[in-house]
């Protein structure tokens, strides 16, 4: 067994153990109650590791069986990741019906645009098609998260710390995948042999480190959120909304003030126009 294989196996082992521990942590914390899709995502990670390990046993790490299993399971995991992000987005924006509807349309259109653009600019060749598709989807997820945060910031919506940390973790991990896929793409095109022998395994360190960083971020956020008393935990997630009476009163008062401001403005604009 070469050094490169040793490194790869060691990383695989560390990441697998961490995935199982994280899933157990979520299970103990009964995280499936508040974030069922995120919980399923964590489960899909464990399942992917187990499936890929079995495929290596069956076909070896050079066989087509392994290759197909690895990438199909990766596609499923990315699908789950996207669903988990959608769940977080709904938790952040869902309470504001107007903003939620607008954000849905904008985020959907933007995601499609980024995906199409990423695939279009990738100069896809048959052997690197999966890698390019993966990069496109990851870029799409990262942009989705940033725009979602942009919405929250622009409309001054309170973002609960748990959801914030989870989304940051997803975004950073997706960015790491974009960088990873791009570097792999370039390296494989330039020197495929060298990449397969040594560089690939070394580079795996980067992605593993990014994954471990995301896991740490999520674990910490879930741990801290648990410690916060229930009343405080709910406080920031509760959107500022008014009852019908408040709406009516606010509307009346604000409208009268604005009318006054408008009159002043009209007067002002009129006086400006009449200047010599």
């Amino acid at each position, binding site marked *: 067994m070469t050094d490169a294989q040793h490194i790869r196996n060691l990383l695989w082992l560390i990441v697998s153990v961490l995935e199982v521990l994280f899933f157990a942590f979520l299970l103990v914390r009964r995280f499936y109650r508040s974030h069922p899709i995120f919980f399923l995502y964590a489960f899909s990670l464990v399942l992917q590791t187990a499936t890929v390990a079995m495929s290596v046993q069956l076909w070896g790490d050079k066989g087509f069986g392994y290759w197909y299993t690895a990438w199909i399971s990766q596609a499923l995991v990315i699908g789950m990741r996207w669903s988990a992000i959608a769940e977080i987005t709904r938790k952040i924006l869902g309470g504001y*019906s107007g903003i939620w509807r607008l954000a849905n349309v904008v985020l959907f259109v933007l995601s499609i645009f980024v995906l199409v653009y990423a695939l279009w600019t990738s100069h896809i060749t048959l052997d690197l098609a999966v890698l390019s598709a993966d990069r496109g989807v990851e870029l799409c997820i990262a942009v989705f998260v940033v725009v979602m945060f942009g919405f929250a910031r622009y409309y*001054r919506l309170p973002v609960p710390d748990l959801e914030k940390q989870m989304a940051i973790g997803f975004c950073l991990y997706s960015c790491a995948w974009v960088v990873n896929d791009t570097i792999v793409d370039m390296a494989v095109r330039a020197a495929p042999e060298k990449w397969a022998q040594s560089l690939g395994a070394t580079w795996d360190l980067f992605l593993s480190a990014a994954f471990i960083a995301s896991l740490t971020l999520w674990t910490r956020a879930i741990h801290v959120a648990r410690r916060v008393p229930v009343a405080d935990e709910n406080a920031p997630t509760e959107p500022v909304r008014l009852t019908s009476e408040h709406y009516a009163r606010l509307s009346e008062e604000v409208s009268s003030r604005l009318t006054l401001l408008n009159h002043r403005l009209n007067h002002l604009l009129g006086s400006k126009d009449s200047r010599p």
Partner: protein
Amino acid sequence: MNIPMLLFLVAAVLIVLLLAWATRPPKRTFRSPNEVLEALTEERHYARLPQILQALREEDLEFLRGSGPGHLAEQVESERTKIALRYLEYLEEEFQVLLEASRMLAGMAPELSALREFDRFKRSLMFMLCCRYLKWKLRLGLQPWREFGVISDLAGEITLQLEAATGRLGERAFLPYADTGTAHDRKKSPEV
């Protein structure tokens, strides 16, 4: 390294930077509708625009340069520039208050128009750029007549949009059994 690949790497870095910016807490937020009302009831500075425009008129300074002592025109110009700069700062703050109020109302609105929201976003960007540009122009001793008119228009249009938004909220308030009402509203107002 080809350019599309380089762009992917740049995009990843850019996304991380944008993420850092987007997750920062905003400088100013209203916590309750009462704060919005309070802010809206404060005195409006843009009502002082005619006086400011008058203060910036070149004719006055030319007259002073021609008939008064030499240093007097310079002193007047410097003081008037300071006043205009301070006025701009107040105007910027006022615009931010209006913008914050409109954001808060958007949070309560049952639906938003994408075009109108984009338009407001564009206006807020334009206002910010215009203000910066004006400040530099004033500092360099140039006459920014036209730009003052532009930022006044922007503040006015935001005000009009706010009025329309609150009007829609008001209309909605009188439709207690509307299907589009939020669950929270219905839950909190069983009497409606």
